[in-house]
């Protein structure tokens, strides 16, 4: 019984490997095997490889200083963090918010079997995530440090202890996430902010990892002494990996007891937790007289409403909105230095061109117009059955991308104009080139979205992340930027900044005009005929 339930749980977690959401059908056996092999490769060789590299960076030094326990403590903490963060959202979804709780509870399945299967699923995922850190760390230790029966037993013990702690922490954090989620008013914005903060932290950690490891190794003896002296229990966790069986038993008892306690607490309230309906904050309706809006304003508000209601849409198609203001500040602080550096390598004109090109690349990070037609999906009948000129619908979709790209772009341009020393003609081009690039990309995105719509999706992810139009919108922009850069190296440098960027700007204006005329003359009719 529990085996069947765990299998179902894992199939749900990895459903993307068995089911093609885009085509809404099951994958072929070969497709599933291929996907699973790819996943295994990613986890074992790529992710495992990264942590093997980290182990190699710190291991030999610590082994030489006879601080093997500190090595295990460090790698254990990384494994714990990855395990908890990797499985906390799965815990939230599978333990506290599972969609099939009602269905399973209505079947002749003992409640404890459902609970154990849910916890086993959380445990196995935590084990997998922590395993990609701790297994390479152990292997490196066994090869470069000490290998014996006790270190082997200690290694297995360490894996178990970490996985037990991950299970406990995932359950606690999953509960916290469930509680916060049910009380949030603006879930979409909160999700976007949290995602961006995590992304930012990830990049900071990646950039600073080398410095952190160097600093840690330089002070390893001091760090080791402090932990040894002031936190003996923590020190004893490190000893587990190097084969101290007494420490292993103590930690196994502590972590095991915590697992039992967590299981007991959850089992007491599981039925209540599993069957509680979403305690969303109910908004009170207050009757007001609405302000009358024009048709275009109404459509624009509707498009903004759709964009801001979906974290997936905002994160995948509107990251440029957040990046541009940050870039403007960065240019004000470091722009002069970067321009001078680029100027010393490529020449002053080329430096200005590269900055222009960079602004174009940032503008192409916004592509909310590309999936906007597909996102109408089952709601298409609303706009088509209303007395609205379809061109207005398209212009509203276009305007969202233009407003969200060009306004922050003006900030970046202003920052560039303040920092860079430019001639009046260069200044005009510095304003026109990125703004027209933004306009051209918005028009390309909308045109592609209209020509290749997918109106039969069942999951918003499909038009926003996996559609042909989004692929063209994202990579098309980068290809255009690369092409303009390549042409500059080939011919543009000889022409000079003003001539070359002037030609590029005229090209952007012409292409924009052609696409705009097409959307007005033909695009509206195509939208009206979408079925």
């Amino acid at each position, binding site marked *: 019984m529990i085996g069947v339930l765990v299998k179902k749980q894992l199939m749900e977690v990895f459903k993307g490997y068995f089911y093609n959401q885009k085509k809404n059908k099951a994958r072929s056996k070969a497709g599933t095997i291929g996907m699973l092999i790819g996943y295994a490769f990613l986890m074992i060789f790529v992710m495992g490889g990264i942590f093997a590299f980290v182990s190699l960076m710190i291991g030999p030094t610590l082994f030489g200083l006879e601080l093997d326990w500190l090595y295990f403590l460090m790698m254990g903490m990384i494994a714990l963090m990855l395990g908890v963060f990797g499985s906390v959202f799965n815990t939230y979804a599978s333990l506290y918010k599972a969609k099939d709780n009602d269905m399973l509870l209505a079947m002749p399945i003992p409640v404890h079997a459902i609970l154990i299967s849910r916890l086993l699923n959380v445990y196995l995922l935590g084990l997998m995530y922590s395993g990609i850190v701790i297994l390479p760390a152990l292997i490196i230790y066994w090869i470069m440090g000490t290998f014996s029966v006790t270190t082997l037993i200690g290694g297995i013990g360490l894996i178990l202890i970490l996985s037990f702690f991950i299970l406990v922490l995932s359950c606690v954090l999953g509960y916290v996430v469930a509680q916060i989620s049910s009380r949030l008013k603006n879930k979409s914005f909160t999700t976007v902010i949290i995602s961006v903060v995590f992304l930012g932290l990830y990049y900071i950690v990646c950039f600073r990892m080398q410095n952190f490891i160097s600093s840690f190794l330089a002070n390893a003896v001091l760090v080791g002494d402090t932990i040894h002296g002031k936190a003996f229990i923590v020190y004893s966790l490190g000893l587990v990996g190097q084969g101290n069986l007494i420490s292993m038993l103590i930690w196994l008892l502590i972590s095991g007891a915590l697992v039992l306690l967590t299981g007991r607490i959850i089992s007491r309230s599981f039925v209540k937790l599993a069957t509680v309906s979403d305690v969303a904050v109910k*908004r009170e309706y207050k009757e007001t007289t609405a302000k009358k809006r024009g048709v275009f*304003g*109404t459509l624009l508000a509707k498009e903004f409403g759709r964009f801001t209601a*979906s974290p997936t849409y905002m994160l995948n198609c509107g990251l440029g909105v957040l990046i541009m203001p940050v870039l403007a500040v960065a240019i004000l602080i470091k722009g002069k230095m970067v321009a001078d550096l680029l100027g010393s390598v490529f020449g002053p004109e080329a430096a200005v061109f590269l900055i222009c090109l960079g602004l174009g690349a940032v503008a192409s990070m916004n592509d909310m117009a590309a999936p906007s037609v597909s996102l109408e999906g*089952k*709601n298409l*009948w609303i706009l088509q*059955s*209303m*007395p609205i000129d379809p061109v207005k619908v398209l212009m509203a979709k276009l305007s969202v991308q233009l407003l969200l790209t060009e306004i922050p772009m003006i900030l970046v341009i202003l920052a560039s104009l303040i920092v860079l020393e430019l001639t009046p003609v260069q200044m005009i081009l510095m304003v026109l080139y990125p703004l027209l690039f933004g306009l051209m990309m918005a028009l390309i995105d909308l045109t592609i979205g209209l020509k290749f719509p997918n109106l039969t999706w069942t999951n918003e992810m499909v038009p926003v992340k996996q559609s042909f139009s989004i692929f063209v919108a994202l990579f098309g922009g980068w290809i255009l930027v690369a092409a303009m850069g390549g042409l500059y190296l080939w011919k543009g440098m000889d022409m000079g900044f003003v001539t070359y960027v002037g030609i590029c700007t005229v090209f952007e204006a012409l292409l924009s005009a052609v696409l705009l005329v097409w959307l007005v003359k033909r695009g509206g009719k195509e939208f009206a005929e979408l079925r």
Partner: protein
Amino acid sequence: MLQIKELTKTFGEKTAVDNLSLHIAPGEIYGFIGHNGAGKTTTLRSIIGIQDFDKGEILVDGTSVAADPIGCKKKIAYIPDNPDLYEFMSGIKYLNFVGDIFKVEPGIRKERIRKYADLFGLTQDLAQPIASYSHGMKQKLAIISAWIHDPKLILMDEPFVGLDPKAAHILKGMMREHCDKGGAIFFSTHVLEVAEKLCDKVAIIKGGHLIRFGTMEEVKGDDSLEDVFLELAEDQEAEKQGSEA
């Protein structure tokens, strides 16, 4: 109010609607009955302009759907068989969206929202996102949005599906009130008892062909609408098999 002349629509080899002609006068509640796949939804979608057609003409209050689709849509409200509304909006935002598109004055809009939302008991849920609505609540919201701009013609595809008995009763009252004021309603239904009691006229469609239409008395005589519908459907089937043989 609505004139359909020789409407024909094919999907590949299949003729969904074949040479259908119908006239609906102001003040009439016109029921449209037929099996699944008979051509009801195709006809309704053609009238509202979200389904192109191969042949024929549709006039709404004298305006051609093909020549002036926007002009026609200003006079029509449409409720599809499945109320897929904007789930990212709240109920009140959706009603204001419809009100803005149809240029309903804010004061009148407020009054109508209050009237119909109170009738359906939806007022307290208007601030909630549509995503949290049940099927019945979405259907009620779609009905309010159709009535909010006081259209001349209301087209409804299976409007009673998902409604509780009280809401269905309220809708019937609203339909009668609308037609008494000079509006017209054309709706499809499988609930023959409702059609029999509510409709002034009825049209029965099978395999894209209009097999009988007229006033309720003309169509059913002394029999029940259910008996007539089943009998006609069987006759049509037998006739078709005979001609094929």
